[in-house]
């Protein structure tokens, strides 16, 4: 009873609507060696019934994931229900883009697609009941494992924070250099053009016998 009720309800709770050729991108700023699991479910709008279909066979989504250097690390087609996973190798902003591959949507669906999405990062990707069963851990051991995973994530984030702070400092120092050197340059240009103007005009007026 419980399982039936739960499966019929929306499995991955948050959803949004997407157009036919629309590409929706989500950004995940994560440290390196962090695992990300994304799950999605799509529902097609049925024009005749005026509601969303429960299952939509034949519909697919193209998932493209780019790393902080805009290099594509995953570019795959999945079915109407999909699960994708990747582990970051460089810290930074990763971009997860989804778009529908179906061109038949406009004909049958009136161009509307409902996408349920759930993205879990880092220690949220761990399935603790599974880990307990696999490694045969007692309750206390499992709790300790969970705490260890959390602390590891905090540590990774702190390291990433150090790297980001250095980038920020470099940007600020670059701005400082720009302000300094360009101010000096502009002042020199001002002085020299002023001197040149006066000299040039003086010689011009002397030539014209006005002075």
């Amino acid at each position, binding site marked *: 009873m419980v399982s039936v*009720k739960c499966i019929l309800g929306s499995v991955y709770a*948050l959803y949004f609507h997407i157009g036919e050729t629309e590409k929706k991108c989500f950004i995940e700023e994560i440290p390196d060696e962090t695992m990300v699991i994304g799950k999605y479910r799509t529902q097609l709008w049925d024009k005749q019934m005026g509601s969303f279909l429960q299952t939509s066979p034949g519909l697919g989504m193209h998932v493209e994931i780019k790393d902080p250097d805009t290099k594509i690390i995953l570019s795959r087609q999945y079915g109407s229900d999909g699960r994708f996973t990747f582990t970051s190798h460089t810290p930074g902003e990763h971009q997860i883009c989804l778009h529908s591959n179906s061109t038949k949507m406009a004909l049958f669906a009136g161009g509307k697609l409902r996408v349920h999405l*759930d993205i879990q990062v880092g220690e949220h990707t761990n399935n603790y009941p599974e880990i307990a069963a696999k490694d045969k851990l007692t309750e206390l051991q499992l709790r300790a494992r969970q705490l260890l995973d959390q602390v590891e994530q905090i540590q990774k984030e702190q390291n990433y924070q150090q790297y980001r702070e250095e*980038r920020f400092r470099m940007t600020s120092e670059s701005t400082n250099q720009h302000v300094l050197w*360009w101010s000096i340059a502009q002042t020199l240009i001002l002085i020299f053009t002023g001197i040149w103007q006066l000299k040039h005009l003086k010689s011009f007026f002397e030539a014209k016998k006005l002075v």
Partner: protein
Amino acid sequence: MYSYHGTIRVLVQVLWAYPLCGWTFGSELTFELPDNAKQCFYEDITIGTKCTLEFQVVTGGHYDVDCRLEDADGTVLYKEMKKQYDSFTFTAAKNGTYKFCFSNEFSTFTHKTVYFDFQVGEDPPLFPNENRVTALTQMESACVSIHEALKSVIDYQTHFRLREAQGRSRAEDLNTRVAFWSIGEALILLVVSISQVVLLRSFFSDRKTTTTRVGS
């Protein structure tokens, strides 16, 4: 034999379905909101669930966005214009689909990157099929309080990361603007001073010819 297999199958189904239902679905996403665009998200919430919506604008323009949260009947629960960051907690008074939208319609050409965290309900317990009859031991309750403390540390880290991203985005903007305008101003200085001289020269050249004509 048959009934045993049947029971196992139902049990497996329940165990599989359990992580998928009840308890919480905390969604934390960062997305790009183009100019003049509106993005809405929906979630089905049961009555009595305590929910929290938190959002922050990470990059773009004046770092502000319009946010609107509606319940299942369309009643507006939360509506703010041009907010940089806010957190809103509510308890669901009705069953149904709740909708929250972020709008950048007031902006003409700046894209915004918006982060939001929508927590629905409590976190799932570590052992889903446990039904606790005895109280937690001291070790276990210590573990639980450490877990909660670490969760708030991770939450603070996220907020710090977003603020730092915002600060860094402003610093990079400032850097490009300073470089661009400095070069521009230097060029303008040169051009203006040279054209001043050229213009003055042209005035005096014309006047000389007119005076000579008038004279004769």
